[in-house]
């Protein structure tokens, strides 16, 4: 039951975060506002904010970022938006198949067109 052990440790961590940290720290410890102002932003950015940033954004309480930090230990940026090595295929694979706690996303949630836009946004800085 090794996994369960880890799982419990993580659950414990969340509790620590939630319980130990005072409201003050909590507020201080992050910055993102979760309202999206789409004006002038590329569609991929807007869709990313809408569907991905709650998990893969910056700040505390972002499971995706947390998991990638633990996975790459800094070898790669934990923030997807800072990556330059993602391929559209890879992005689509994760969105449609999920990975560990990341669930699959249906086409009624993220349409294929939205997904293309998100892929374009996340690969914008890739070397040609």
């Amino acid at each position, binding site marked *: 039951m090794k996994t*369960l*052990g880890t799982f419990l440790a*993580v659950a414990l961590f969340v*509790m620590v975060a939630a319980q130990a940290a005072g409201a003050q720290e909590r507020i201080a410890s992050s910055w993102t506002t979760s309202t999206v102002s789409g004006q002038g932003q590329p569609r991929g950015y807007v869709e990313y904010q809408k569907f991905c940033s709650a998990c893969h954004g910056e700040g505390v309480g972002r499971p995706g970022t947390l998991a990638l930090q633990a996975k790459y230990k800094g070898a790669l940026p934990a923030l997807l938006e800072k990556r330059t090595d993602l391929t559209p295929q890879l992005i689509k694979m994760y969105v449609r198949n999920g990975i560990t*706690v990341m669930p699959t996303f249906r086409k009624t949630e993220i349409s294929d067109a939205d997904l293309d836009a998100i892929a374009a946004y996340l690969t914008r800085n890739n070397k040609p």
Partner: protein
Amino acid sequence: MRVPPGVTPKDFSDAIKQWQEAIGTDWVFTSDEDTDLYRDSYSPFWHEDVEPIPSAAVAPDTVEQVQAVVKIANTYKIPLWTISTGKNLGYGGSAPLLGGSVVLDLKRMDRILEVNEKNHYALVEPGVSYFDLYRYIQEKGLKVWIDPADPGWGSLIGNAVDRGGGRTPMRDHFDAHCGMEVVLANGEVMRTGMGALPGSKTWQQYRYGFGPYVDGMFSQSNFGIITKMGFWLYPEPESYMTGTIAVPKHDDIVPLVANLAYLMNSGIVLGTTTVGSPLNFVRDPALAALRAKPGGASPQELEQYAAQRNLPYWSIELPFYGPAKVVAAQWQYAKQQFSAIAGARFQDGKTTTFPLPADAPTQFPASVAIGVPNLAVFGVGSVRSEGHIWFSPIIPMTGEAVLEARSVFEDAYREMGMPTGPMFFLGPSSNYPRCFLVLFGFPIEHDVEKNRTNREHFKRLIKIAAEHGWGEYRTHTAFMDTVMDAYSFNNHALRRFHETIKDAVDPDGILSPGRCGVWPKHLRKAQA
């Protein structure tokens, strides 16, 4: 192409064709690639044949389309499994309970029909998520709060109908609803409460209307498809503050909870709070050793350990909502009450005043407590496991019950060879006004054997809880029959009543077969 149970391929393809005509080819999903997106990402049946997988999915965009879809399903007796956003991960997600059902995906119906700032209510469609409504309110700058469930991508309707809970004064989500529109199994549309009165002016202001109040029947059930639902919102208060109470002795939990219950029942504490033990957060070899010895650490030993290090034994953090002077006065009153416990210590939390400045942070772990949705809860297990499901019994709001539950489940975990540790469950928390909710997370593996063992353990826990008079408030689709079985007073009178109703309102049994242990007649025998 997969085919639903008891339906001929010919009938099914006819139905598919009619659905495509009714809602458009793009929104009828039949390829394995597309329908696989409806599998439960946190299924305890991964890689097993018994995993319930849908045969297809249909995604209507309007009530009329829902009616059309249901009528077609009715003619061909095709089982439909309705989901709102399908994101109640840990309780079933978007997958049906009966393999081969067609998922009726309402995500496209995501209209926010009304938000009333003066009377503080909203009317929404099933596809509207907490994120959606939060954004809408922020953009319009309305002075009302939503009460998000922990997963912010959940649907207000879906979560309320699953009877989920949050943390603000409106945290009992089904209790906070007011008025429904429902499509029945025969495709007819019905409105409840004042909505049954054409041109009603108070659909979202008085929930009961006239005559039998039927709304509750459509929660945790399969009697109809909810296409609109009203919710009462909490007006943005002037401020929010927390105060922490810490007590030194093991037995102090009894007066601690008694005082908490008094404050909640008196409407002085209006939000969710959790009884915790700071000792559980200490990472100290000495403490670990103390716990490791056979039989574990005794309360006295832990008290001593805590006393030596000036640590409390139990603590709770109380949330207060309202005018700054009032929350201060309420906290002061609370301190008076708790001072009756010898050695009680208090820590004032910060006061947050609203509205938060536009550039201010609105994302932090407890942000659901101030009505801001997020996904922090998925930090649970996000590093390693493949997801989780929740075992979630309701226990009395007393210190005795907390201690009893703790020892009962600790013994059960040991007996089943599962690791316990100081924090093997979350809570007890007061997500509901008069009782405690305790959450036990079960990891999902991609290892068939482990999942099988976990499922057995899960069912065993349900039985053990029932033997002590504790029932689950909600459960994953895989365990709905087992949980409903535990509610067996007078030879399952309640479930037999549900079945009577089911047969009357859905004679062909096409709506969400098996949901919460309610099966249509033709499948009941198969189950029995």
